[in-house]
């Protein structure tokens, strides 16, 4: 619990929050930490908006017939829920907030490689969100976030602004990825070899590679849909000479890797939190590090598993099915290594760790349902049913949310210098974790029964499980409110955290809380890997004042 030597020297200097004052200093900042905080505010707002849409959907499905809205409104709601959650929350959240804030701190850098581009990503996010919100207010799209053609190119709703919004957001995503890749390659402090990099950096690096390689394909595809929708070019609509299945290939070539853009940062957080709270180095550091790259690589060759029922050839389906198993394999390697890390550890069960246990629950059970889906013949029954909905909400939504909340509670003292109250954090955490299960376990069963997704009304036999699912969703909402209030209250009334409240040996904890504007007084020199907790206790990194 004692502050490390590095932070003593800078303890009384103004931190990044107090060094400059005024709105203007925030809007023009190039400080990666402030940009991280801005992303926290923006993506949290997006999470609230997407969650609001989710609750409306669940209320509508409380009865088999119309409940609170008509079919058109319902179709808009699930589209907006998907678009907001994916493009405005899950993809930018963890890299935008915690990647920005901690990647430079973890590699001993003063900032990211391109601070101005980093600031531009905030404005691209705002611009993309503004265009998308404009589209939502003026009608909203009714296509689902997947924008399947030719429905999306013939619908009368406002698809174009939503598509353009997603396009701009994608541009921001690419720039963030380039920035992180260059930063990791060029700004590592002396002594920080690749195999001494925190696993958080490895996974964020892998994420960035996917963002840079896959997002341009999404951009192209969305533009093509926009062009067809607005100008009537025949690209995907067979009535105009196009091919609707082409769209599905192009779309999933991005959107399946995008699942790993969402999950890899979550895995990044898991590695850090587990090591800190088990007070132990990662069992199989290299396996965890390289499996991130493995997921990023194989993730590019599995998109066809979204097309098992589209009419693609049995051979294609077989190849994509086998390759999908390999993504499961890399994930399994990570899970085994995380679990083995707990062996002979000294585990402190605090709020961040509880969220990580929640994450592992959803990843292990949700991941297993993913393997079942890759078993081609079972997918035929489950495709486009609530089973698939429940599967990706377990892995992608619950996974990202659990890791997001874990990261928020883990790094909150570092980011804002205050500790939150532990008891409300645990209550909120249990409500969110249990609520997610209560929401989506009934949906797995609905999928087994054969209830298709995106159904506004449904036969009566699906009714009881839908009620159960809605009840679960309300628990999640209450849990989120508790978390929000608890964290906001801590900003004003929380205890001063001190530089390292968790006793972590992660590099980023060598700074004061909140960190100094310049991160480090000099260039740190790294002499060993992160999270070494053996006797004698070595300092995580030694800071020397550069001449």
């Amino acid at each position: 619990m004692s502050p490390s030597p590095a932070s003593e020297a800078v303890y009384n200097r103004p931190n990044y929050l107090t060094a400059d004052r005024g709105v203007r200093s925030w809007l023009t900042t190039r400080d990666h930490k402030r940009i991280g905080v801005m992303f926290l505010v923006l993506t949290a707002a997006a999470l609230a908006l997407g969650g609001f849409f989710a609750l409306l959907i669940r209320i509508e499905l409380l009865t088999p017939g119309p409940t609170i809205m008509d079919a058109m409104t319902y179709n808009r709601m699930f589209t907006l829920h998907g678009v907001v959650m994916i493009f405005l929350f899950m993809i930018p959240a963890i890299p935008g907030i915690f990647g920005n804030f901690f990647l430079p701190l973890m590699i001993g850098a003063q900032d990211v490689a391109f601070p101005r581009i980093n600031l531009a990503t905030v404005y691209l996010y705002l611009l993309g969100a503004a265009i998308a919100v404009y589209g939502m207010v003026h009608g909203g799209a009714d296509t689902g976030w997947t924008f399947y053609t030719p429905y999306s190119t013939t619908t009368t709703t406002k698809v174009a602004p939503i598509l353009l919004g997603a396009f701009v957001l994608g541009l921001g995503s690419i720039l963030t990825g380039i920035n992180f890749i260059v930063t990791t390659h060029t700004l590592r402090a002396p002594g920080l070899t690749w195999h001494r990099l925190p696993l958080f950096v490895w996974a964020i690096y892998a994420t960035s590679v996917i963002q840079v390689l896959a997002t341009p394909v999404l951009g192209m595809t969305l533009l093509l849909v926009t062009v067809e929708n607005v100008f009537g070019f025949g690209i995907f609509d067979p009535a105009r000479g196009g091919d609707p299945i082409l769209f599905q290939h192009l779309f999933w070539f991005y959107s399946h890797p995008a699942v790993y853009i969402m999950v890899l940062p979550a895995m990044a957080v898991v590695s850090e939190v587990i090591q800190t709270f088990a007070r132990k180095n990662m069992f199989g550091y290299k396996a965890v590090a390289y499996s991130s790259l493995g997921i990023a690589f194989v993730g590019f060759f599995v998109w066809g598993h979204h097309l098992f029922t589209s009419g693609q050839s049995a051979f294609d389906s077989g190849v994509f099915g086998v390759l999908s198993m390999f993504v499961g394999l890399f994930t399994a390697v990570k899970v085994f290594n995380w679990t083995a890390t707990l062996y002979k550890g000294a585990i402190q069960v605090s709020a961040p760790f509880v969220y990580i246990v929640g994450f592992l629950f959803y990843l292990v059970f949700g991941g297993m349902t993913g393997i079942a889906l890759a078993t081609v013949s079972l997918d035929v029954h489950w495709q486009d049913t609530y089973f698939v909905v429940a599967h990706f909400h377990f892995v992608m939504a619950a996974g990202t949310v659990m890791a997001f909340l874990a990261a928020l509670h883990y790094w909150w003292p570092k980011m804002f210098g205050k500790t939150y109250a532990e008891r409300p954090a645990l209550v909120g955490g249990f409500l969110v974790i249990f609520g997610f299960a209560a929401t989506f376990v009934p949906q797995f069963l609905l999928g087994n029964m054969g209830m298709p997704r995106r159904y506004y009304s449904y036969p009566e036999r699906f009714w009881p499980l839908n009620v159960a699912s809605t009840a679960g969703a309300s628990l999640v909402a209450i849990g989120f409110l508790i978390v929000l209030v608890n964290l906001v209250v801590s900003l004003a009334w929380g205890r001063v955290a001190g530089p390292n409240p968790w006793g972590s040996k992660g590099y980023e904890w060598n700074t004061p809380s909140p960190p100094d504007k310049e991160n480090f007084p000099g260039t740190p020199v790294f002499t060993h890997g992160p999270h070494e907790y053996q006797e004698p206790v070595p300092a995580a990194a030694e800071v020397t004042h550069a001449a």
Partner: protein
Amino acid sequence: MNELLRQLLFLPEQGTAYARSVDQLHYFIVLTTMIGAAAVFTTLVAFVIVYRRRHAAQTTPHVEPKPIHEVLFVGVPLVLFLTWFAIGFPQYVELQTPPKDAMDVYVQGKKWMWKFAYPGGPNSTDVLRVPAGRPVRLLMTSRDVIHSFYVPAFRLKQDVVPGRYTQTWFRATAPGRHQLFCAEFCGTGHSAMLGEVVVMPAAEFDAWLADQRRGVVAAQDSAPVPSEDIDVRTSLVEQGRRLAAEYGCFKCHTVDGTQHIGPSWLDLYERRERLDGGKTVVADEGYLTRSIMDPRADVVAGFQPVMPTFQGRIPAPEVAAIVEFMKSLRTDVVRAPPSQGPVYVPVPSK
């Protein structure tokens, strides 16, 4: 055992031998994955309890994996995953390979109905009649956007794509009725794009098909069905009711005044309608006919322009019958006993 597991997992009845074999794989995978996941998660929780932190300054040993650990971490799941795949993939290939002696039925999906055409000419809407015990191949295409033909009881799903034909097949084991869903989102009426697969004893099916070919039995497949037998050749209104059901009009239009995807037909005739552009129009025969042929020309305010055109798809006499049926739907001639649903008495035609 099959029955117990099927009910535990909330799976629908097994209408084909294929469904049964898929379920066997389902049970095997669910059991192994859930045991595997539970084992991993239990180990994790056990570690959390056994190795909880006992005092604040506790240190831990440095543990590195031996090569055998990594081999097991990769090898065990790989063997399991590939085993499941090796069982599941041949089932998929079976589903993709219709037998040579299968009976062909053409399926056309469109917003928001299913049309089935049998060899020799008969066709139906939303109700697919098939013989039990014989293979049936479905050749499917869509007229507008992508739909997906999904019969949970057969564990069967195949996207129905505009501009190309996709195929699938099944062999229903026993007579019965199974629900048909559209599984690919296709717009406002997506969740109303339901149908039914009626499996008939083979002999009964042959007789039905022969009757259909002779054109003796009028198709009475879709709701609302008249309660008593009326000779369809005598009443234009009854013909209109039957045709409206056949063409799927009731997917979007109600006849009892409740609002749905399109305007209700009750009291529609000679009603003054406000249009999307602010104009008003009287819903006379001319407007009603035009709205069937060119639905997007004059859309009633508050409704989405989602109706497909029927230009060239309904012969003129049939349009006349449907319009006559609309004209018959008037509140002032409806006698509605409180205990039953509304009953409509047609206006005597002039």
